[in-house]
């Protein structure tokens, strides 16, 4: 794959030494032109050393855990400071397939939209998810449809790409926790466009999901509130 634009792949990582090397190597296999920044969010394992050894372009080591929003924003801040045209975010646990990266960034390279979300629902893919996750996604999809009038079937997906406008926006403001859904409303309210792109997703390869049943209730309440408030901005 040859790239016209300067693309940065952002991988936020918290205790992901078991899966991050494979993710970085697969990204490298897709294209040598992709820069990879790993944002270590205060891991207690060897995520930093493993990421360096696997050939990450840069490893940014946060001195303590900021949470997913703070870690992700660090990546966007780095992209903004270093003048990248496109920033792509991908999970460190191996659930996203780097071979989809060209598909995820294509609509942005063509200048059609400002932001893309790699979704497992746009076309039939090989992904099976839990009931709670499905309920959450239906709730968030309806919320986004209602507030932005846009369709997003998988608004919690963390496989995303942003153009320069969105990178600058995220460098300035990014929600602290459970940012995925709120960010879409924020983009739409600022007159920018997003689109879903079909991707493959598999079960996570190592580590564990940070979402417990109690947290998922807090997740829905917090995001619901944040979305409604940002819709009034």
């Amino acid at each position, binding site marked *: 794959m040859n790239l016209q634009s300067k693309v940065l792949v952002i991988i936020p990582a918290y205790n992901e030494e078991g899966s991050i090397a494979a993710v970085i190597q697969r990204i490298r296999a897709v294209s040598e032109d992709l820069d990879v920044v790993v944002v270590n969010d205060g891991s207690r394992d060897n995520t930093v050393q493993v990421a360096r050894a696997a050939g990450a372009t*840069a*490893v940014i080591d*946060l*001195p*303590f855990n*900021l949470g997913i929003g703070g870690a992700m*924003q660090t990546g966007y*801040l*780095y992209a903004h400071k270093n003048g990248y045209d496109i920033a792509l975010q991908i999970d460190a646990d191996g659930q996203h397939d780097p071979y989809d990266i060209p598909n995820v960034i294509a609509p942005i390279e063509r200048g059609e939209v400002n932001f893309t979300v790699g979704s497992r629902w746009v076309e039939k893919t090989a992904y099976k998810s839990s009931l709670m996750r499905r309920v959450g996604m239906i709730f968030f999809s309806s919320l986004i449809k209602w507030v932005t009038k846009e369709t997003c079937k998988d608004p919690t997906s963390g496989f995303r790409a942003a153009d320069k406008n969105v990178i600058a926006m995220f460098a300035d403001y990014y929600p*602290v926790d459970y940012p995925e859904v709120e960010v879409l409303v924020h983009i739409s309210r600022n007159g920018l466009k997003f689109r879903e792109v079909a991707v493959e997703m598999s079960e996570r390869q190592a580590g564990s999901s940070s979402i417990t049943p109690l947290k998922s209730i807090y997740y829905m309440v917090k995001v619901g509130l944040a979305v409604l408030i940002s819709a009034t901005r």
Partner: protein
Amino acid sequence: MTVWNTPVIYLLSILFSLFFVLFVLSLVRRRRLREQYSIMWIVLGVIIVVVSLKSSWLILLANLLDVVYAPSLLFLIALLFCFAYLLHLTTVVSKLSDRVVKLTQELAIYQHDEQTHKVPQKQEGR
């Protein structure tokens, strides 16, 4: 119980609020509390001292508001003040958290740039 025809609660109230105001002032003196945050506490303390000394004013206000037991009006004022001040404090905490996140990110990126020699190093020696 009354002393010099004054309910004891008013005397306790005067003593407590005087002590409170002095304590706030000493915190400011020792730079343990910023002036900007101390003003509201001092104002509250002074209000309580005044209504405790001039309890007739409190009773007058209580009558105006149809409050049967005047000291309960004191509680209401203090409680509302606490709510307002707690809300103010949570906004201060939110602002501080945002700044800590921003500083942490800037520091981590700066350290990375320094390690990869993007930042010009200071010359050793003279």
